[in-house]
């Protein structure tokens, strides 16, 4: 019996078109021949699958027809959750945004490192010598030292101004190094408006200190210095004041001693809360009794009201370090304080003869 015949038998058996006799015979065949039996089972399964496949296709067509009647676009708008634009932007572009941010951070850091802003506290630090000339010229001169000045720039009476104070009656003065650095000539002017030529005899740039000597023939002895330079450190909260020349006339500034070390941890300087301005640099910082406890140096540009004064100990060290052959006269510091019992106003009026405006000329 060929396959085709067998298949025909199976189909006729299944659709019930066999005669009763054929049916009995076929059932007997199924029972006795396992191969026939398995063919029958396989055929039933296969045709079943084929029919189901057809049904599936038909169902899919029906569903598609239904689907085509739905306005999917309108529905989509309705059910879409619209995140806020920033979330959407982040989802769509977060990798790009991250890369851009990394580059930006890297760039900023690079610039900061290259320009030295990261590790340099001096950016926060403004030294207080007054710039008398216009900014451009001053910057050019500080920046380039002795670079020749272009002829069109007119010569002005002083390029730079600070304050200094007498150490001895015979004309030794203390001021800041940054006031007199790059100076071609230095003049000091007293409260009465008289100017004297002075020369720089010693500097300690690391402590921003300089010692001047008045070497002008018209200079007369100052008379005994009323204050002394204190060796011990001042106390926190102690009332302090300074006199100086931020303007053309002497200016008094009072406040208190805020810290024994500046913000970058430099213990050579006090932090003081005394209003000072450019021009106060080099002025004396005095305590209530009229002892000099420091020298005004700079102000912190980022903290309002914080200024700095070099501790007097460093001034004393600087004086000791002056080579003896630089000294044409004796430099004996006054050790007797004559201001102790006086009021602040009396102290100031006595002091003013010993505080000088330092005028610096350079090319």
């Amino acid at each position, binding site marked *: 019996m060929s*396959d*085709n015949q067998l*298949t*025909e038998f199976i189909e006729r058996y299944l659709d019930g078109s066999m005669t009763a006799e054929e049916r009995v015979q076929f059932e007997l065949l199924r029972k006795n021949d396992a191969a026939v039996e398995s063919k029958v089972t*396989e055929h039933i399964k*296969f*045709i079943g*699958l*084929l*029919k*189901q*496949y*057809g049904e*599936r*296709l038909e*169902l*899919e067509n*029906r*569903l*598609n027809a*239904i*689907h085509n*009647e*739905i306005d*999917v*676009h309108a*529905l*989509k708008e*309705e*059910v*879409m*959750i619209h995140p806020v634009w920033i979330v959407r932007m982040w989802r769509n572009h977060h990798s790009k945004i991250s890369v851009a941010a990394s580059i930006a951070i890297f760039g900023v850091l690079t610039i900061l490192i290259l320009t030295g802003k990261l590790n340099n506290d001096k950016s926060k630090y403004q030294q207080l010598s007054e710039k008398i000339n216009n900014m451009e010229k001053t910057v050019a001169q500080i920046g380039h030292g002795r670079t020749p000045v272009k002829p069109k720039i007119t010569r002005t009476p002083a390029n730079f101004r600070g304050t200094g104070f007498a150490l001895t009656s015979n004309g030794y003065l203390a001021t800041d190094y940054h006031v007199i650095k790059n100076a071609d000539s230095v003049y000091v002017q007293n409260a009465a408006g008289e100017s004297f030529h002075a020369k720089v005899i010693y500097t300690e740039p690391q402590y921003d200190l300089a010692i001047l000597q008045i070497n002008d023939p018209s200079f007369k002895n100052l008379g005994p210095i009323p204050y002394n330079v204190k060796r011990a450190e001042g106390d926190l909260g102690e009332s302090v004041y300074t006199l100086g020349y931020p303007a053309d006339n002497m200016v008094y500034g009072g406040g208190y001693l805020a810290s024994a070390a500046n913000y970058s941890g430099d213990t050579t300087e006090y932090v003081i809360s005394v209003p000072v301005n450019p021009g106060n640099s080099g002025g004396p910082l005095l305590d209530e009794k009229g002892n000099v406890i420091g020298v005004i140096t700079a102000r912190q540009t980022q903290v309002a009201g914080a200024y700095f004064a070099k501790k007097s100990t460093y001034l004393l060290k600087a004086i000791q370090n002056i080579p003896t052959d630089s000294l044409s006269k004796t430099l004996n510091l006054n050790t007797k304080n004559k201001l102790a019992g006086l009021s602040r106003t009396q102290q100031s009026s006595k002091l003013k003869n010993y505080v000088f405006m330092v005028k610096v000329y350079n090319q």
Partner: protein
Amino acid sequence: MNKDLKASAPTDSEIVLGILNNSEIVLKRLYTTYFPMILQLIINNNGDEDDAKDIYQEAIIVLYNKIKAGDFELNSKLKTYIYSVCRRLWLKRLSQMNRYGGDIRDFEEHLPVEEEIDNHNDRDIQFGKMESALQLLGEPCKTIMEDFYIKNRSMQEICERFGYTNADNAKTQKYKCLQRLKKLFFQQK
């Protein structure tokens, strides 16, 4: 959302009865009632409207077959059942496409339906084989098979359609075609 659609939502037993009775209207109401829910699920989870259509139709077919097979018990809401099946199918699809980010934004409660989807997948594989076997079979065999076994047309009709001079020739042709179809089907891995 979709208040008017929900208001006219057919009850679950209406749907089961309707499908058992081959009601086209009930099938349509079933389809339109829950499609927005699935569209919402898919498009808010990295899919588009075509994905939603595929997934939803697959879920409707699973449900349809389950009801037809008579083993659908109304112990959960139809809505939850459809949502769960779609959710499962979509997660599977997402991981196949490597678009699955590890979480899914859910809109409804859901049940575990893994087993049913596995059964469904097995059957889909069989259908896939059948489809490609029919393609390989070529004409006129393909149409003869479809006409006779799927569309239940009589041999007489098929004879006339293909111009066979007598029914015996047609029958022989049909059996040859069936043999080849079986062979092609079982050859596939």
